[in-house]
Structure formats: structure tokens, C-alpha cells
């Protein structure tokens, strides 16, 4: 009896926790039919190995994700993402299970502890000092820092981890954090040199130049670069400043499309607020507007933003601007600077470091591409083989058809010679009987 009661109490507090965690306003409220579509996909036996139709999944995400299934749906989307990749992506060198990681000590403990109370500080689940939310957050961040010692802990990560924890248990959250960092590739931006983050800022400013020239010039006039306002957008996937309902939708898209989504959301947000931003004309008021007013979007505005993101494609530009960034950096190095030797040495050191990192990244990409080429080649081979097999089959079938036709003729001849009127059982093949009569 005692035990039962405890169980009951535990499940009750679980439920309460779940309600607490999901207490946010949904942006695209999910209709019953759509929820059914999701439930059907989620309930498919052997789901993790079944490739679902991409269009169907896209359509379902666009129509909304039911909050109560969101965690499971993210897991589903991650499975589908991995199934679509023909090549296994780079996994962490360390594959110690979560439970084991929890037993170890991290050198990042101090930084993680300090940020616990500063991650969603007003959310009821995370608010209590060293309450359930903060403890889970601590475990998750600690385990990740041990799994990925290069990144360790970087500010911003706690918000990503926090969003995951609002939708699932610790261990699932750990797996999905791993997915976001390694497979979606978010981890690069948190590396200690933060060069990728700077490249992303450059890419965003170039995209802004492409899509909203007037806004770009306005910001440029005040020397406002994206790193002044968009750093938390990238490092927390909008989680630090925006309403949770919106953040959840951004994560839906992130799991569906990958890291490009952050650029698209940023671009869409800036674009839709352009008239308002243009009204401000000092550094302080513009940045203040983007940082504090803009995140309090209305529901309609949020939904519009997400819809726009579904339609956008900036993949090619992002690639081009990344290359451009590196070229510009190289040029910058070639111009003789007016620095003293010490500064110059330090600069060269930094450049060297970044080039080395770049090399590693390129090597990684090369490996992935190689693997892709291999898999495509083997697919081509397979297709060629199956083509020739099909050809053989066609010839065999044609041969069979010919034989069957001649059998039919023989049989008809036989019938004729026996004096049975074949027309009784249906019309005979006219051209055949014609020729046969002639012959007989």
C-alpha cells in the first residue's frame, strides 16, 4: 500500500512537472487531424528504420506540432534526418554512456554552476535554486562537457539544453543534444576560438545586404554588426530572449532542416521589423529595439515568421559567403599592417590557429564528401547492374511471349483440325485465324 501510494505520488508529480514544463503558448496550434497524422507516424512499428516521405513530414511540421508529443517528434525528426543522410556523420570520439558520464568530474563545473540560475531564470521549472530543473540541467551540461572536451561548456548551451529538458527526460535530452551538436553541426560555433560564430555573423550581414539593402545600410551607418544583437540568436537558437512557444517552433524547424534555420529566422525577423527598425536612428535605440522589443512578437507575427522560414532557401549563399569570408581574411593578412612585431606575431599565431582549424574542418568535409561519392558510386553500380538485369528480363519475357504466341497458334491449328469452332468461346484473334485459314 505504501509503495503504491508512493508510486501514485511520483506519477502525479511527474504529470505536474510535465504540465509545468509545457506551460507555454503554442504558435501554430495543432489541429486534431494533424495530431492524428503525427500519432500515426510516431506509432509506426520499427519507426527508427522506416524512411517516411519527406513531403509528408514537411507538411506535418508546417501544419503544427502538438506540444504533448513535441519531445517524441524531435526524436522522430532526428531519426529521419539520420536516415536521409547516406553517410554516417562525424560522431563523438567518446561513446561513454550517459549514466557513466554522470559519475565523472568535469573541469567546467564552475561555469556550469554559475549559469544554472541564469538559464530561464523566471521559468517555474528552472527557477528553484538546485530544484529538479536546475539539477537536470547541471547533469546534462556536465555530461556533454565530458563527452566533448573541445567544446566543454560554452555560454548559450545551457539554453539549448534547457529547451530540450522541457520536452523530455535527461537521457533523451542528452541524445538529442548530441544530435544537434554533432549531426546538425551546432558544436562548431561553440569552439574556444569562436571563428565559426564570426563567420556566421559575416554570412548574416551579407544575407541582410542581399535581402534588405536599406536595413543593411541603416545598421551599417551606426556600425551595428550582427554580432551586437545576433550572438545569442545563434548560441541559444533564439531561446534566451524569445517566448518559448516561438522557440519550440524554431527547434521544430531546426530538427527538420538543420542549422540554416537560424539564419532564416534571423533574416525573416529583421525583414518583418524593418519599418520599425528604420524609425530608430541611434546605436542605442536600434540595438535596444532589436534586443528587447523585437523578441516580444505577437502570435501572428511569430506564425508568419515560421511560415516564411519554411519557404526560404539560403544554402547556396551561405556557402558562397563562407568562402568569401576566408578570402577576405587572407587579403587582410597580405596588406602590410602598421603593427609592431609582437602584435604581428600574435596575429599570425591567431591566423595560423584558425587556418589549422579550417584545415581540420575541410578535412572533415572532405571525408564526408568522399564517403558520399563512394556511396553514390556504389549506388550507380547497383543501378547499372539492376538495369542490365532488367534488360535481360525484358529479353527473356519477350522470348517467352514469342513462344506463347506460337503455342497459341499451334493450339488453334489443332482445334481447327479437330473441327471445333473456336469462335464459340469468344472471338478468335482475327489476324491469326485469317492467316491460318489461308495456310490450311
Amino acid at each position, binding site marked *: 500500500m505504501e509503495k503504491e501510494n508512493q508510486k501514485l505520488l511520483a506519477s502525479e508529480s511527474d504529470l505536474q512537472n510535465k504540465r509545468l514544463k509545457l506551460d507555454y503558448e503554442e504558435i501554430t496550434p495543432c489541429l486534431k487531424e494533424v495530431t492524428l497524422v503525427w500519432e500515426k507516424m510516431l506509432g509506426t512499428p520499427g519507426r527508427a528504420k522506416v524512411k517516411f516521405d519527406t513531403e509528408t513530414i514537411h507538411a506535418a511540421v508546417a501544419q503544427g506540432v502538438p506540444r504533448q508529443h513535441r519531445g517524441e517528434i524531435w526524436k522522430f525528426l532526428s531519426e529521419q534526418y539520420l536516415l536521409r543522410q547516406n553517410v554516417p556523420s562525424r560522431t563523438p570520439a567518446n561513446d561513454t554512456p550517459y549514466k557513466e558520464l554522470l559519475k565523472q568530474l568535469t573541469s567546467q563545473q564552475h561555469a556550469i554552476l554559475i*549559469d544554472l540560475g*541564469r538559464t530561464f531564470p523566471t521559468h517555474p521549472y528552472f527557477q528553484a535554486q538546485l530544484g529538479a530543473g536546475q539539477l537536470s540541467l547541471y547533469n546534462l551540461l556536465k555530461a556533454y562537457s565530458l563527452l566533448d572536451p573541445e567544446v566543454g561548456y560554452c555560454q548559450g548551451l545551457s539554453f539549448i539544453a534547457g529547451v530540450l529538458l522541457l520536452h523530455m527526460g535527461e537521457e533523451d535530452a542528452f541524445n538529442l543534444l548530441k544530435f544537434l551538436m554533432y549531426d546538425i553541426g551546432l558544436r562548431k560555433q561553440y569552439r574556444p576560438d*569562436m571563428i565559426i560564430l564570426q563567420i556566421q555573423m559575416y554570412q548574416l550581414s551579407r544575407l541582410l545586404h542581399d535581402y534588405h539593402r536599406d536595413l543593411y545600410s541603416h545598421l551599417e551607418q551606426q556600425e551595428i554588426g550582427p*554580432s*551586437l544583437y545576433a550572438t545569442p540568436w545563434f548560441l*541559444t537558437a533564439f531561446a534566451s530572449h524569445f517566448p518559448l512557444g516561438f522557440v519550440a517552433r524554431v527547434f521544430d524547424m531546426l530538427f527538420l532542416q538543420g542549422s540554416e534555420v537560424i539564419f532564416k529566422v534571423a533574416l525573416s525577423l529583421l525583414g518583418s521589423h524593418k519599418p520599425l527598425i528604420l524609425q530608430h536612428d541611434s546605436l542605442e535605440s536600434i540595438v535596444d529595439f532589436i534586443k528587447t522589443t523585437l523578441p516580444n512578437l505577437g502570435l501572428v507575427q511569430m506564425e508568419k515568421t515560421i511560415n516564411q522560414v519554411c519557404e526560404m532557401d539560403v544554402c547556396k549563399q551561405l556557402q558562397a559567403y563562407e568562402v568569401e569570408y576566408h578570402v577576405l581574411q587572407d587579403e587582410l593578412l597580405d596588406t602590410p599592417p602598421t603593427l609592431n612585431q609582437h602584435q604581428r606575431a600574435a596575429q599570425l599565431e591567431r591566423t595560423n590557429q584558425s587556418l589549422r582549424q579550417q584545415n581540420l574542418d575541410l578535412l572533415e568535409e572532405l571525408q564526408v564528401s568522399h564517403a558520399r561519392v563512394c556511396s553514390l558510386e556504389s549506388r550507380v553500380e547497383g543501378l547499372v547492374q539492376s538495369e542490365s538485369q532488367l534488360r535481360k528480363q525484358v529479353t527473356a519475357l519477350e522470348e517467352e511471349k514469342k513462344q506463347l504466341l506460337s503455342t497459341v497458334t499451334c493450339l488453334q491449328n489443332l482445334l481447327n483440325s479437330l473441327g471445333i469452332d473456336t469462335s464459340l468461346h469468344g472471338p478468335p484473334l482475327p489476324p491469326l485465324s485469317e492467316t491460318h485459314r489461308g495456310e490450311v
Partner: protein
Amino acid sequence: MQNNHHKEHLYKILVIGDLGVGKTSIIKRYVHHNFSPNYRATIGVDFALKVLNWDQETVRLQLWDIAGQERFGNMTRVYYREAMGAFIVFDVTRPASFEAVTKWKEDLDSKLTLANGKHVATVLLANKCDQGRDVLTNNGIKMEQFCQENGFVGWYETSAKENINIDEAANCLVKHIMASENDMLQSEVPDTVTPQLEKDKGGTCSSCFRSQ
């Protein structure tokens, strides 16, 4: 220079120090006159503007709140440009954050020098003094010695929570910024440029404790 009455100054001030020492809280207290235990971690940079009336002049302080985690240093270095002063903050309840102070100061000096080749005025803030005093800050003489050795123009025990000494610290910094601005303006007059500028270092400064 002639028209001193409605003169406006705009000073960019950096607020740096280890993570969680209370940089954001100090700025919010100073600019918005409030305190909350619920501030988010600063990711990247933030800034706020404080307007002061100073001897019939207007002083606009642009306070730059810089993320405390070391790896952000590469990204935030561009925001050091043209700063005229800085606060380096540590948490009196965490000795490690004090040990990092010299590192922050060296980093600041390596990234930033004034037009006259001097370092920017920097005030040291021993924050969270409402939560008990650290052995070190108990010893005022030692702290002053530390400041002199490390090139701080002054130090204050502050509490953003209880609003202790924040205005005072800011006033001290502004005074020094103005003094060094005047210094630079004077040295710009062609006739007075002297090659012995370095030797003048012993001269006393107009404010705070630092008299020799």
C-alpha cells in the same frame, strides 16, 4: 573648448570580469536603479546608456557589458575600440574571480591604448560586498597597493543588490576619464609636445587616493 556650457561628452566604458561576478547587475543598478536576482547570462555583449549632469555639462556613458567567459574574448575584442575607461569587476565571495583580475587588466591593456599611448582609466570593483567581506578587501592598504601595482585608478567595494558605492565608483572613473581627455587635448597643442612624456608619469592625479 570655449563654449563650455552645453558641452556634451560621450564616453564608452567597458565592464569586464569573470562570469557571474555581477557585471550586468551593476549596470542595471546604475542605469535603471533596480536589482533583480533573475538576470540571464549575458551572451556576447550588451550595453546601456547613462546620462549624467556634470558641472553643467552632459556626460553620456555608454556602458558595455562584456560576456565573462574567456572564449568570447576573440569575438568581443572589436568592442574594445575607442573605449575611454573600464570597470574590472570581481566577486568578493569568490577568490578565483579576484585572481583573474590581473589577467583581465593585462588583456585590456593589450587590446586598448589611448591616443597618447597611455592605458585607459580603470576602476576595480569588489562586488557583492553585502555577502560578507573577503580577507583581502578587509585590508585596504594591501588593496591600494594592488591597484598601484596594476595600474588601477581606484577601487570600491560595491553591491548592486544594496546599491553600495556604484555611483561613487562611476564618478571616480568619469573624473579620471576627463582628466586624461584634458591631458590629451593639451598634448595635442603642437608647442607643448615634449619627448619626455614618459618621465612625467610621476605627476599626481587630480582625484581618488592615488597621491604620491
